[in-house]
């Protein structure tokens, strides 16, 4: 089998997910050995439009993005959303809850007229997406797992259970016991509950599980002292594009 040709692209994002790929260290060499990287702005100079797998980072925030993304979709056999901006809309969607003219002024000041913007959205709102690797940033091991699955011709599997599972496996003490609140019960696992393990709580960066019980999660947060506005804020931080955050 010929090595699959792989390309990386970015839209509105901090490029942190691409950085995670570069940070794969020894695994990166193996990935690079197993595939042929033909385009990766953050790590190399050349570019080619002949690729099999496109990893696309970032959310779509303006009309001109759509054309570029459609072009990538036409070239790629497999299109993978890399990270929460691309997969969920992510943190960029925070601006969707404000007037678009207002946010433009806030960011670009008197040059606002020169820029176009519209409410941020995930890739799948514009083109069909074959696979999503959520996370802000992505988990490197999960990225490697997805690459391996493609090489084996398998469909990659990422967890569809909440962060609480990995949190219990890590033997963390639930942050609700310590007076904090947490999005773990509705957030897709796969990160090993790293934020709780490191002393924080889950912010919800990997997005929601397939069938989240948002109502119950709202109740739990309210019982632990959050106002309606704060609860909404928790859901909007990363999953502002989803129905539950409306």
């Amino acid at each position, binding site marked *: 089998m010929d090595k699959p040709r792989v390309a990386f692209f970015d839209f509105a994002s901090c490029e942190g997910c691409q950085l995670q790929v570069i940070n794969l260290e020894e695994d990166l060499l193996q990935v690079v050995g197993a595939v042929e990287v033909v385009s990766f702005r953050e790590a190399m100079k050349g570019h080619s439009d002949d690729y099999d797998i496109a990893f696309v980072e970032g959310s779509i925030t303006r009309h001109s993005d759509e054309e570029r993304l459609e072009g990538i979709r036409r070239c790629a056999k497999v299109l993978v959303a890399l990270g929460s901006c691309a997969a969920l809309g992510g943190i960029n969607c925070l601006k969707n809850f404000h007037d678009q003219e207002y946010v433009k002024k806030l960011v670009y000041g008197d040059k606002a007229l020169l820029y176009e913007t519209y409410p941020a959205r995930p890739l799948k709102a514009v083109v069909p997406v074959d696979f999503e690797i959520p996370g802000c940033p992505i988990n490197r091991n999960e990225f490697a797992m997805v690459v391996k699955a493609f090489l084996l011709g398998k469909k990659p599997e990422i967890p569809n259970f909440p962060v609480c*599972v990995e949190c219990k496996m890590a033997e963390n003490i639930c942050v609700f016991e310590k007076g904090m609140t947490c999005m773990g019960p509705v957030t897709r696992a796969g990160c090993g509950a790293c934020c709780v393990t490191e002393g924080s709580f889950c912010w919800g960066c990997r997005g929601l599980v397939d069938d989240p019980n948002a*109502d119950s999660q709202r109740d739990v947060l309210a019982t632990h002292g959050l106002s309606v506005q704060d609860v909404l804020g928790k859901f909007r931080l990363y999953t502002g594009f989803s129905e539950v955050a409306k």
Partner: protein
Amino acid sequence: MKLRLIEKSDLDLFVQNLINDYQVDGVKRKEGSFLYGSIKSPEELCLDFDCTVIPPKKYFLPPEETLFQFTSSPALQVTPVMESNPFILFGVHPYDIKAINQMDRIFARGVPDPHYLKRREAALIIGVDPTKVAPRSFWADMGAATVSEGFDLMLTDIGESFIVEIGSNKGRSLLEQHAKPRPATRNEARERVGIRSRISHICKKRGFAFPKREIPTLLEHSWKKFFWEEQASKCLSCGTCNLVCPTCYCFDVQDNIDLDLVHGERVRRWDGCLLHDFAKVATGENFRETRASRYRHRFYRKGLYLFRLLDDMACVGCGRCASACLPDIADPVNLFNKLREDEK
């Protein structure tokens, strides 16, 4: 039954002697909670805990473990991974020992599970009677206040000293070689009875409002009830009630392959029947798609399916599920009492 006694002032020496010769794990304090972990010095060991966050099952069925390693080419080669380093588990409450006894039966049944059994054989268990009762515990009502087997030694705090019951020959030599026990007097033995009944009495504040023998029949008549939907409406499907339970043993098996696509390992990790994809099969079909059906399943396992197998409930009353479930709907006492009320 011959009982021994060790003075409290000699306990540290006993623990230190064990640490010198064995890997010792026991209960440690962390942020106001209790966790099992490696004990490196006697001061770290806590014996007056009420209940740990995660039960000792993690020593026999770890959250994640490698079952075997494989090489897929030129020819398939499989190397089993078995762990069996001897260790001492110091400070296990009777209800958790009862749970381990149930697990021992489950994992030895049918095709015996060598990974579990090897670890289990490698463990020496030093039990300890609880001196405190966790707010949601109901082990006294589950007949788990004391156990007659499943430990090598069993300690009871009677004030200035510990009564030590010997549960096995291994336990006997462990005690004789590492501590300075003397025979307990009749009075001291009686004190143990008194202490045990006082703590059980405190624990009995929580329990079933009807005989637990009736639970299987109750469940047999409750399958189609709307009750389950009502109860499960708040369920987050987070699996916490399964993962913290000392009698839940479900796991998922997966292959992890290296980037060379040749080497890899088969691992198993904790799973739980409350999780959305637990009963999903390769064709994509999910046999327990709804929250209510998964929620109901757990109580049927505890109170009916496993009851038939073990002639007892697969619940020892530790109360871990109850205190860890955020919407507070996992407590067997509340659930079965409500179900019984609903029946009337």
